[in-house]
């Protein structure tokens, strides 16, 4: 079989995937970029079906169509606020698929081995018996090649391999299955946490990280065992161990660190695909896996940087140790009603809104958008300030605001707007807490000391829309709420913002 066509298609697909990711640098080019991705994927799938896809292509098509139908329904139905869950769920599918494909690869190796042994030939190649004559070896070689051709595409590839290559193959598929399994269970837990089915608090089994370390060490032993024996048992044991690691690792990470977790799992799903690509010898899988893997890794890095925490400390869960007692906060939280907020908004010329996870929870983006439209119609400057870790997913707030038809050019990043906050008349903080906590700058003992925050307290007036007096995810008291220019606007964010609407004139 000649796969020239397939390889060419793969190159085109890889280029399309790169363009597709690169196109996301701007909102307009992004709309084109999706099509690159779709065409690339279609091309790659078709080329595989026509080329090395080994039979049963009708079944394959049916399965793709079936899966596609499910995917379409989910994609159409999902609420924008549920996007974090959806992304996590999809990661788990990729993870599981990687596990399956890796296991199949193992079965294929076993099948090829058995076939060689039954035919009285030596496998892997190169481990020939030195007592044989040269002619015998040559005969064996011819016989082996013929036998190899009788297999399907993938098995045929395996049959060609030498001893060293088989060992590498073992390691590759072992890695692929390991990462896939971690991604699978990790994503399932992340899904549960994001969807509210599992408590979002950080929970660890007794033993904590020692359990993870132990499981990882045992996996390593399984790897050595597997490479030496080639039997299924170590692979299966490792899969279970990896599943446990994924579960336990993500269980130990709390709510607000979810952006990091989701992008980390995104990265893992890519590395799993890349590892499988190695074991299948498929360059497109390797390229795509590496693209996705590095994309997730960069996202995780950006998120960690925005929280001023190292990746390790996020993964190990919980906030870092504090160096001393936190600065005490004095004063009281002064409440205000909708009337007061509306008056201030009517008087203000420049307004900045800082949305957080609370806005997503209360589904308040629609009300916020209406408020913004009304304020802008009156000639006021209204902008949004988005902290990189606001919400539970990188860019979560941007998507929610976009859904509510807030124009993206008034939605600014932290670095773009922080300097302007001092000149702002009114800042409305909707359901965010830690990202506007002045303790990050003022209190060297604060657990979040040094984390870049939105300096909303510099504005003339700050209104904080919040359900009650509780602390944020990190459990840190927020001195912002006690400042003289801060007023607390208690109540459900959606109801609060809606109550403002008729009062703006």
């Amino acid at each position, binding site marked *: 079989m000649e796969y020239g066509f397939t390889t060419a298609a793969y190159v085109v697909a890889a280029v399309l995937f790169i363009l597709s990711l690169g196109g996301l640098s701007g*909102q307009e080019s992004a709309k084109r970029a999706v099509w690159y991705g779709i065409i690339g994927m279609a091309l*790659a799938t078709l080329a595989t079906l026509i080329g090395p896809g080994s039979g049963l292509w009708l079944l394959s098509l049916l399965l793709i169509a079936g899966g596609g139908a499910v995917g379409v329904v989910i994609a159409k139905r999902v609420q924008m606020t549920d996007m974090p869950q959806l992304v996590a769920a999809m990661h788990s599918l990729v993870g599981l698929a990687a596990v399956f494909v890796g296991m199949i690869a193992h079965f294929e190796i076993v099948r090829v081995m058995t076939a060689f042994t039954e035919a009285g030939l030596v496998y892997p190649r190169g481990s020939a018996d030195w007592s044989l004559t040269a002619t015998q070896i040559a005969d064996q070689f011819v016989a082996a090649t013929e036998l190899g051709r009788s297999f399907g595409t993938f098995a045929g590839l395996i049959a060609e391999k030498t001893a060293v290559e088989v060992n590498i193959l073992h390691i590759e598929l072992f890695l692929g299955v390991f990462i896939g399994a971690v991604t699978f269970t990790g994503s399932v837990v992340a899904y549960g946490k994001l969807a509210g089915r599992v408590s979002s608090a950080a929970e660890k089994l007794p033993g904590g990280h020692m359990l993870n370390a132990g499981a990882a060490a045992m996996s390593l032993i399984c790897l050595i065992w597997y490479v030496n024996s080639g039997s299924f048992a170590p692979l299966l044991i490792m899969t279970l161990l990896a599943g446990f690691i994924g579960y336990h690792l993500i269980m130990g990470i709390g709510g607000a660190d979810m952006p990091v977790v989701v992008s980390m799992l995104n990265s893992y799903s890519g590395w799993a695909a890349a590892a499988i690509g190695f074991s299948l010898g498929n360059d497109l899988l390797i390229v795509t896996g590496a693209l996705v893997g590095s*994309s997730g890794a960069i996202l995780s890095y950006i998120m960690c940087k925005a929280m001023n925490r190292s990746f390790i400390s996020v993964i190990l869960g919980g906030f870092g140790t504090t160096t001393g007692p936190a600065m005490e906060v004095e004063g009281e939280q002064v409440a205000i009603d909708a009337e007061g907020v509306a008056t201030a908004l009517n008087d203000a010329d420049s307004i900045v809104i800082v949305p957080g996870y609370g806005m997503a929870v209360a589904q308040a983006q629609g009300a916020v958008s209406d408020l913004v439209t009304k304020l802008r119609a009156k000639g006021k400057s209204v902008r949004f300030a988005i902290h*990189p870790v606001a919400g539970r997913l990188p*860019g979560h707030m941007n*998507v929610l605001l976009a859904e509510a038809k807030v124009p993206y050019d008034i939605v600014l990043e932290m670095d773009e707007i922080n300097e302007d906050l001092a000149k702002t008349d009114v800042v409305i903080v909707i359901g965010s807490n830690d990202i506007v906590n002045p303790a990050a700058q003022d209190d060297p003992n604060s657990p979040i000391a040094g984390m870049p925050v939105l300096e909303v307290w510099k504005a003339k007036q700050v209104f904080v829309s919040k359900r009650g007096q509780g602390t944020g995810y990190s459990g840190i008291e927020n001195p912002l709420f006690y400042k003289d220019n801060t007023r607390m606007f208690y109540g459900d964010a959606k109801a609060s913002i809606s109550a403002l609407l008729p009062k703006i004139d």
Partner: protein
Amino acid sequence: MKIGVPKETHEGEARVAMTPDSAVQLQKLGYDCAIEAGAGHKAGFVDADYTAAGVEVIKTAAALWAASDIVAKVRPPNATELKRLKDGKTLITFFDPAGNETAMEAARKSGASVIAMEMVPRISRAQKMDALSSMANIAGYRAVIEASSNFGRFFTGQITAAGKMPPARVLVIGAGVAGLAAIGTSTSLGAVTLAFDVRPEVAEQVESMGAEFVYLDFEEAQDGAGAGGYASVSSPEFREAQLAKFRELAPGIDIVITTALIPNRDAPELWTEDMVKAMKPGSVIVDLAAEKGGNCKLTVKDEKIVTEGGVTIIGYTDFPSRMAAQASSLYATNIRHMMADLTPEKDGQIVHDMEDDVIRGATVVHAGEITYPPPPPKVQAIAAKPKQTAPVPTAAEKKASELANFKKQTKMQAALLGGGAVIMLAIGAVAPESFVSHFIVFALACFVGFSVIWGVAHSLHTPLMAITNAISSIIILGALMQIGSGSGLVIVLAALAIFMAGVNIFGGFLVTRRMLAMFQKS
């Protein structure tokens, strides 16, 4: 316990440490209040107002001192008052602990506690009792008003039928609380206002008040911020540059308001005689630093003089007292907040907690010991940490830092590339060719991935995740290649993998499209 407020004994002092309003609040803290007859008179509060607010009016100062457990005052106590300070009493007042050692010693011997209002540390939490700031605010306002009443022209520019009048040009030196208040008053009167301060980080505050910040062409970073948001002493070179700038400005300035003070030092001379001479006749200088010798050497403390060149120099030191009603109500509120901090239980009993930063800082005499000076406060956060934004970084500096950055980056990249190359070579040396060829593809793809993803807009991170999700379903290729080549179990597993990847491909791309369609420009 009883809080008593005597009449101020210092001549000309019109302020009072308690107003009827603050008395009501103090009573809510559980205290009884008393005031000397006529104490609030000059500030516009008559005895009847106090009585109405539930304050006991006591005829003589001696009786009041004897009856009170806590005495609140404005001015530092004089010798008679110090004698009346008895064991167990608490005195809250401006005390001038740095320049008043004899009084401090007398207070120590008496066994009383003294809280000096000017020693309240400048931290956010203590702002509500920062009497220096309240008084400085008034002084800044009043300085402009005094200047205006001595200035024979409008502040604001006008074009009328009778001719065109240019706006006054005001220079405010020192942008502390008083300076900022002066800037605010001056700009709202319509004058063109310039301001200077040795701490460049206040430029933003100055500009926010509507004044123009005067930058210096000075090579060293212009930064004179000391601890606690106060200015510190600057280098001689810096001073020269500063004076040169002022000299350049002097002829065009109508009104100068100097507010430059450095804690515990004589006021620096900033407005020299030749600058005064350079000013137009009719110009006004208000020297708010007159108490400490003045920022202008011609200033006469507590007096208004007119120089030969026709420049009026005002050296009053009693600006707050000139606005006694306002000053008293602010000061009384500061005292009230201090009392609130001293009365955590709101039961009318003082708890002198020397662990509390604010109380510790303000206390100068306690339990028979002089506790001045206090240890530096643990947090100094009123005027933000000095941002390293030197207003005029010189070209040479810029170049140097750019070069250093470039070198650092080059080193980084070289190290990374070198390391990467070594690893690749090491792998290539042991691994078979078939693996290495794939590995190169992998490394290149990672490289491309890293370069491409950095360009992705922050706001598109969620679509990015959805699309990478769809793309990572490329794993379907693996399953497609395997499905036909094996036994039942292989087919089942491969079929499942294909199905799941199918969900992901369609779901991922569709969701991405849905999200991107929502992003709209205004």
